[in-house]
């Protein structure tokens, strides 16, 4: 049920989009898009001209039809993008409709109400087997929750009051136990609702860059409006009568209809791509900011390392055989269910062939769990006390002294970024286990590419500086923040921002909230607290901190797509001039025939071809607008060169070819 990528040609989306394209012709909504509004007015005027003018009805009629198509195609692009976004959001939302809730009244009694009657602050009781009726925070109890509806992850997770795992999302299901939840959002204000609003036309706010671009497109539209209107008196002076249909055809070809028609589709598609990655953005602005990010704050655990340290080496004390050490290490870890403990058992098996023993096989073993006081764990077996733990604790356990070799090994492991665990019996220390943070594969490469794009990666960790430096070096990050407290994080973000940089981070705990709010892009983990989710501007439903990297890539891809299609659209004008201007003047000045460099068939077919190309190119570019241009992690110089070549030079050449082909078809079919 998790969001997935959809085929561009999914009929479930295309069919309603066709209907929406017609609805969007409403001039009241169309005004929001000045370029397409002018096109629509042009289409309307030419429709009148079909009946009012004495030009060829075939020509005027076809121009008019294609102008209407131009508007419809643009509407269709937007409707498609909205449809895909809505489909994505609806699958997420479907789960929560028609749930009921047990709301606690003031007198402590529960009443059964429908979920959409819940208001912020209401407290509901949810028992095993029931769906959670809305976003909220657990105020009492703990439960296992099935969040697969949101995350697609089938393993249940534990949610409990207090701490960083107290928030629950509407639409998920309680599997065991009973919890009391305080609802944190009114109906229609939950993350999902906001998300749906983002992809729906009416509620969508333009991002700052979209506003700026719309201003430029409007300015160009007004300029070309002037160009075409003044052609009338210019023509009169030169003894040429330009018909309104021809002038409108020229106008619509010159104004940037391609980008004007696709602009909102590009923006919606960007948000949609985020949803496909199971990330909910709270605003389009956040997605744009993601593209601009200069600094990525990455939590070490879970993002850069696998999250668990693993035993990679046994360093025996002098006079102790590796086998003896491995055996003791394994014994002391048998009851240790942490990933670290298990990795010790595995290493002992791999290196020394010591089979993992079952607890049941050792009836007289007494297990000593880890406590904060002793900072050791182990087992008492056959009168022998096996312990493993931090060097300091074990040192006092064995009577205050280690052999210099052991001290050296402990120091060496620390300096390599690892964690040394000393293994000992009451009599003597046996050696050291090297626990290592395992850096995820492929990250160094990825960070290298980010560096090429000018993005700095910073590792945040609670480790000491020595350990942090070693891991940072291995992972290939540019900087690290060791022994980081939430305050340190906040200060780091502020410092970078003062230097004019944009910062992105992930976080889940309540104490992350200020930093999440301060960051330009704050991705809160869905497992995190309500406070964290409120503070960030995105929520990752999978709670996977590595996602931050993808969020940045999606932001960049969105901006690149917008820039590429703008450049393409404006570059198209050259070919359209060469098609239309000679056609407009040929009747009055036959001498200018050589200017018709495309050798188009007749003035009428030249103008019609340009108009058809102008309409069809919108449809042709919808897949690109929805998928986004290919994302390449290159430096700005290389990216600019590449994209200018494809979309700038391509934008100049493609319409020459396209218009020529359409002209040949028109001539072949004798359309005008």
């Amino acid at each position: 049920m998790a969001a997935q990528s959809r085929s561009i040609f999914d009929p479930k989306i295309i069919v309603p989009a066709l209907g929406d394209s017609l609805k969007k012709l409403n001039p009241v909504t169309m005004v929001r898009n000045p370029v397409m509004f002018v096109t629509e007015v042009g289409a309307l005027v030419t429709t009148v001209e079909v009946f009012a003018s004495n030009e060829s009805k075939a020509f005027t009629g076809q121009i008019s039809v294609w102008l209407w198509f131009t508007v419809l195609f643009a509407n269709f692009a937007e409707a498609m993008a909205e449809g895909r976004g809505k489909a994505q959001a609806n699958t997420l939302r479907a789960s929560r409709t028609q749930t009921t809730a047990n709301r606690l009244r003031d007198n402590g009694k529960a009443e059964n109400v429908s979920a959409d009657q819940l208001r912020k602050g209401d407290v509901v009781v949810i028992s095993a087997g029931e769906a959670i009726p809305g976003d909220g925070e657990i105020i009492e109890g703990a439960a296992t929750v099935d969040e697969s509806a949101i995350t697609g992850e089938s393993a249940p997770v534990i949610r409990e009051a207090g701490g960083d795992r107290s928030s629950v999302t509407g639409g998920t299901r309680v599997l065991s136990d009973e919890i009391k939840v305080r609802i944190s959002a009114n109906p229609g204000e939950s993350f999902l609702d906001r998300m749906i609003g983002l992809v729906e036309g009416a509620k969508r706010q333009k991002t700052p860059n979209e506003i700026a671009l719309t201003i430029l497109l409007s300015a160009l539209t007004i300029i070309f409006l002037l160009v075409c209107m003044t052609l009338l008196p210019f023509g009169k002076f030169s003894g040429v009568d330009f018909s309104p249909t021809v002038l409108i055809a020229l106008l619509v070809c010159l104004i940037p209809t391609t980008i004007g028609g696709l602009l909102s589709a590009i923006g919606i598609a960007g948000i949609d791509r985020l949803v496909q990655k199971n990330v909910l953005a709270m605003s389009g602005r956040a997605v744009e900011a993601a593209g601009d990010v200069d600094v990525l704050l990455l939590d070490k655990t879970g993002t850069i390392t696998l999250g668990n340290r693993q035993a990679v080496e046994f360093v025996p004390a002098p006079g102790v055989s590796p086998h003896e050490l491995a055996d003791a290490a394994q014994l002391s870890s048998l009851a240790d269910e942490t990933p670290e403990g298990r990795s010790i058992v595995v290493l002992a098996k791999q290196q020394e062939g010591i089979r993992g023993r079952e607890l049941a096989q050792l009836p007289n073993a007494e297990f000593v769990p880890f406590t904060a006081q002793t900072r050791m764990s182990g087992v008492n077996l056959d009168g022998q006390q096996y312990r493993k733990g931090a060097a300091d604790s074990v040192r006092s356990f064995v009577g205050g002294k280690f052999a210099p070799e052991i001290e050296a090994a402990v120091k060496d492991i620390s300096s390599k970024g690892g964690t040394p665990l000393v293994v000992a019996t009451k009599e003597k220390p046996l050696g050291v286990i090297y626990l290592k943070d395992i850096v995820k594969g492929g990250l160094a490469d990825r960070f290298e590419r980010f560096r090429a794009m000018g993005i700095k990666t910073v590792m945040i960790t609670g480790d000491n500086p020595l350990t942090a430096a070693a891991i940072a070096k291995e992972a290939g990050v540019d900087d690290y923040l060791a022994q980081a407290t939430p305050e340190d994080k906040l200060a780091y973000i502020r410092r970078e921002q003062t230097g004019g940089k944009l910062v992105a981070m992930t976080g889940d705990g309540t104490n992350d909230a200020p930093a999440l709010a301060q960051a330009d892009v704050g991705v809160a983990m869905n497992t995190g607290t309500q406070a964290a989710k409120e503070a960030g501007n995105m929520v990752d439903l999978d709670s996977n901190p590595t996602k931050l990297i993808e969020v940045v890539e999606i932001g960049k891809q969105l901006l690149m797509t917008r820039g590429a299609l703008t450049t393409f659209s404006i570059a198209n004008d050259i070919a359209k001039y060469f098609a239309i201007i000679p056609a407009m003047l040929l009747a009055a000045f036959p001498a200018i025939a050589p200017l018709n460099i495309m050798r188009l068939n007749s003035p009428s077919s030249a103008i019609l071809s340009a108009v058809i190309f102008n309409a069809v190119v919108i449809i042709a570019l919808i897949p690109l607008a929805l998928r986004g241009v290919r994302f390449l992690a290159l430096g700005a110089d290389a990216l600019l060169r590449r994209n200018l070549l494809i979309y700038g030079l391509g934008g100049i050449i493609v319409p020459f070819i396209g218009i020529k082909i359409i002209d040949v078809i028109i001539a072949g079919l004798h359309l005008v």
Partner: protein
Amino acid sequence: MNASGWIQLALYMGVLLLVTKPLGIYLFQVLDGKNTFLEPVLGPVERITYKLLRVDPRREQTWKAYVAAVLLFSLVTMVFTYALLRFQDRLPFHGIIDGLPNKTAMTPDLAFNTAASFTTNTNWQSYVGENTMSYFSQMVALASHNFWSAALGIAVAAALVRGIARHESGTVGNFWVDLVRIHYYLLLPICLIYALFLVSQGIPQNFKPYDTAQLTEKQTIQVPKTDAQNNPVKDAAGNVVLQDQAVETQSIVEGPIASQMAIKMLGTNGGGFVNANAAHPFENPTPLSNFLQILSIFAIPSALTYYLGRAVKNQKHGWAVWGAMAAVFLVGVFTCWKAEADGNPNLYNNGVAQVDGNMEGKEVRFGIFNSALFATVTTDASCGAVNSMHDSFTPIGGLVPLFNIQLGEIIFGGVGAGLYGMLIFVLLAVFIAGLMVGRTPEYLGKKIQAYEVKMSGLVVLVLTLSILVFSAWAAGANNFGAPDPTTNALSNGTNYNGPHGFSEILYAFSSATGNNGSAFAGISANTPWYNTTIALAMLIGRFCMIVPILAIAGSLAAKKLTPAGPGSFPVDGWTFIILLIGTVLLIGALNFLPALALGPVVEHFLMHAGKLF
């Protein structure tokens, strides 16, 4: 296109390149408030000037205060010039320094046009200098305005560059300080030496009355017959009756010409002392004076690109802007030169030898290349001085100057105006293509947002509007500027119907809006309608550009700076040069293609089909 032309072009570009860096560094000292080598001499004068003006040189202005100062200064100087021209016949100095009799006051529309023209650095001349202006007017009203308007342009460019270079700053400089320093350290010292050099080449600098010479070859010309009240006599059909008049003598102009020539070129003003402008031997006597005059048009605009690079601490960016300008300039020179060298095929077909190409309207002294070079340079910059008549160029040869002006005179451009105009295109290029590197658009670490786009769009929009709407008005209406209401013929003041007449109208309003000042001079523009509309076009072209540009300066100055890195949009190198040229052509020129098609383009094809205008 002969070897002499190629050698001169290479020499020209070489010398231009040579002066760019030293003059650019000097400009940086002048505009950044640093001490120049002239400080020991001029420093005290500068400080006294501030005292007299009651200006605190350390207090900077916000962009709004800067705009207010610019507008106030322009208004006062314009009113001053207007008044002076209206009363030039009654001024006391007139008789003292003027050797010239009979200079009458200007009509209100002509005085308005001339005052607007010199205030806006346009120097469109609806009057004939040697017939209309007293020496006093030439010196006080016109030559001084040449200094003022040039300094103002440079000051505005400096304010914009400061806006780009600074961050989180509320101010963009002090207009009065800029004005004083540009005059004292830049324009006056150079012009002093330059004028003396021009005198050495033979340009007059005196207050003598005009000389009279007997013609060795007497001529008879036809002039309109006038009645006792000096009104033209008409026949029954309403046509003006002409009569013969014998011409036996010739007036030879004198006057303080050299001092006006220096600033006319250096300040890209272009207003001639005499009507023939730099084609006249007294304005441009020798090949050397011709070369230096062409060079001095580009000198400051070219150096300003170096100043830009130095001020924003990215010299490569300065050179990239220079490179884009130079590339478009060279294409213009080649096109114009080729068209003029090829000449008119119809003459050739009729057996008329034209070894040198199209010599109509050109000085034999300068020939094809130097005329084409001068025409390209004077229109790339907003100078407008001419050493040949653009109206007589071949259609394509004439298209080049017209096209240059319509680009916005940003190919080196007017002093200051060229740089700030080009920077608008830099902003637009960065905005359009900037997204393609995956970040929201940034120019030298500053985000380019809705406000900057709005102001840049406004600049492009207003200039297009002024050129197209005024031209459409002139072309479409038939009842103004007309010499003859009864026949209705040629009532737009053009000398020709058809494409060439259209080009004349389009050129007039392009030149006015672009603050160029050159003309397709076949047009009879000294009519109340043309004087007024052209004056308005000049004012719009100057101030509707300066205000948004200073607004951008203020907005950029206040922004935070993102340090440059590998992800920042590159504003140097070949990619950027090509992008900038592409933006200039697509945004700046496409708007005028339909109009150009009806003018020079159609005329070109008709010429090859044997039809001339």
